[in-house]
């Protein structure tokens, strides 16, 4: 049986598995956002950054290799992850008190686990347009973290190409595949996987806000 070492634990893996795959299988989860089992590894959020044989790498994209020494829960990596989470919070407009994903949001959950009490950096308060054109689906770009899960779900699961990431640097933005740039003019449907895969409150189904009472939400 082939194994890697994760924070001193010996963890088995099969060929083709990434460090993240085998860590999750062994119930030794590494914090992550853009990764979701079953989707093509992407590696953009960098939250799952680990140190492998002395080098930083994202666990979700790194194939496991026999004897690999992986550090995850070290002070250095915790500081890095806290920094990454704070960056995500200041980059967008994350108003948890008014967000209907609050309590079931993976970004928020990851920040709780990282012990994030404050954003530390100066918030950017970017101006981003909301797309409420579709009768059933809302895009609140304020909350998008560019994890591209919707891009991957639309392409790989739904067999469509509704979403894409455009621009560069801080001007990076989520775009939809229509000449008008509006969701209503795409071929999306509310049953699409792409609508339900968003880790934050950027893509929401309309008419269903605040369904679950506080205290009973996914991460409460």
């Amino acid at each position, binding site marked *: 049986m082939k194994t890697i070492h994760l924070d001193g634990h010996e963890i088995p893996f099969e060929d083709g598995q990434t460090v993240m795959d085998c860590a999750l299988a062994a119930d030794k989860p590494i914090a992550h956002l853009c990764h979701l089992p079953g989707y093509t590894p992407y590696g*953009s959020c*960098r939250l799952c950054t680990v140190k492998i044989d002395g080098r930083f790498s994202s666990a979700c994209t790194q194939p496991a290799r026999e004897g690999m020494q992986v550090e995850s829960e070290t002070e250095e990596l915790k500081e*890095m992850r806290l*920094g*990454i989470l704070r*960056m995500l919070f200041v980059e967008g407009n994350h108003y948890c008190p008014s967000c209907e994903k609050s309590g079931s949001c993976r970004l928020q959950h990851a920040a709780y686990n990282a012990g994030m009490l404050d954003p530390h950096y100066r918030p950017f308060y970017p101006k981003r347009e909301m797309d409420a054109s579709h009768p059933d689906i809302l895009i609140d770009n304020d909350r998008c973290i560019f994890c591209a899960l919707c891009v991957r779900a639309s392409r790989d699961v739904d067999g469509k190409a509704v979403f894409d990431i455009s621009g560069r640097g*801080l001007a990076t933005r989520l775009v939809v*595949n229509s000449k008008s740039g509006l969701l209503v003019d795409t071929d999306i449907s509310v049953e699409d996987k792409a609508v339900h895969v968003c880790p934050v409150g950027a893509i929401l189904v309309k008419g269903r806000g605040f369904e679950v009472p506080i205290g009973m939400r996914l991460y409460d």
Partner: protein
Amino acid sequence: MPSIQEHADLLIERMGNRPLQILIEIQRRFGHVPDDAIGQLSTRLHIPFSRIVGDVEFYALLSREPKGDYAFLMSDNITDWMQGSRVLFSRLSKNLGNHASLSNTSCTGMCDQGPALLVNGLAVPNLSASRIDAIADLVKRSIPVSSWPEEFFRVESNLKRQSWLFDDWQGPHLKGEDLLQALQDCALRGRGGAGYPTAKKWNACREAKGEGRYVVCNADEGEPGTFKDRALLQHRADRLFEGMALCADIVGAEHGILYVRGEYRYLEDHLKEAIARWSRPGFEIELHWGAGAYICGEESALLESIEGKRGIPRVRPPFPVTHGLFGMPTVVDNVETFCAVAAIASGGEKAFRSLGTEKSKGTKLLSISGDCVKPGVYEFPFGVSVEALLAECEAKDALAVQVGGAAGTCLDKTEFGRRIGFEDLPTSGSIMIFNASRDMSEAALNFARFFADESCGFCTPCRVGTSLLAEALESATRGGEAVSEIENLNIVLRASHCGLGLSASRAVMDMLKKFPEHFAAGRAALEGR
């Protein structure tokens, strides 16, 4: 006049399935990329509309909005600043009418003859107040750029010191297995900066599984302060093509692609003629243009760009030698590397091995700019000391030398004995010199802004961290405390997806450490308040 759609159709027929190259042509023709053209490309090439929008919004030299008849982009490297670009920027901005636009762009590779700007994508070096006024006057009189004085667009190669790489070698011609062996014996390493052994890379590509193979030449030199490939493209294009063909022969490729940064558009006619003149049976070289994206100098981002996508570095492994262009095994090497191969293959082998140091054989082309009498392109044997460079280019009173561009290392006076080479100072060839009158906090700020502008936006630490770094330095110039913040960002940036984010804080950290007094004005102001 053909409609936008008809124009797009013509380009598709002429250029085939090369969306980025078509977009560049559309930008040249219309001054922007109209949505109708995006729609036509989307329909004809079966690419989602949104993905083409993604391209246009990614590349700095493309735009969805019209930028006027005259779109000016002022080169914004630290060397441009040192040559007065910021004053010229405001001078030009005051004298432009409303059918022109003006903004900044990253280093255009004219540091030895700056400040420079691009007008409708064409480089205009050697700017001065009088040239700026002349330009403003041409704009005022609505003279089209094609009728502007030719000398405005003249780019000097400024080749100040040439030796082995430029020599005419007349020896037995090596190829195939013999050449691969020679490259190994020569211990030739890639000249782009990372220094991967060339023979090993080519061998890995040859042995990789795949139906086809590609040879890609990276002529995207976007590292601030680098302009040495310009000289090779200008004067040794044949040698470059020869090197690519030798590589193709070894790995079994039929297609070569020369990817040149868009800022070097002035070389277009020259390169097209050179390719046509050179042509060999069984191997064709295709010219691809970049469109303003530093990140495309990263090999996997460059491949994405050739495939017509945004230049986002790929997840590695797999590496290009096994999964490269269109998934095929691909060799990506720098212009200088291919030229070196061709020189080794045609008789330069022995001389090569006698040059340089133990771990860094041969010579290195350096682009020298900043505070010196003779900026330009210099070929030196590896192992040359910084001191010797400074003497050769007549840099007096040097305070600091930035080796390797914005992503490189900043040296102070005590380190001028250090040597260019893989064992000490590996570099793609950018050398920027700062004299004692310079404020290094300006350089730090310039580099930080550069990375913020050029971050591809894929990963969090780099997308956000580079902007925070620039902000921290701006706050330092306003008197804020920045050191602890910059140290924190330096840690988080190490989680970046690629080298851009990983090196974004490097020079800034060097400058903070080596020139604390340049940042102290800010600290003193804070204490006094």
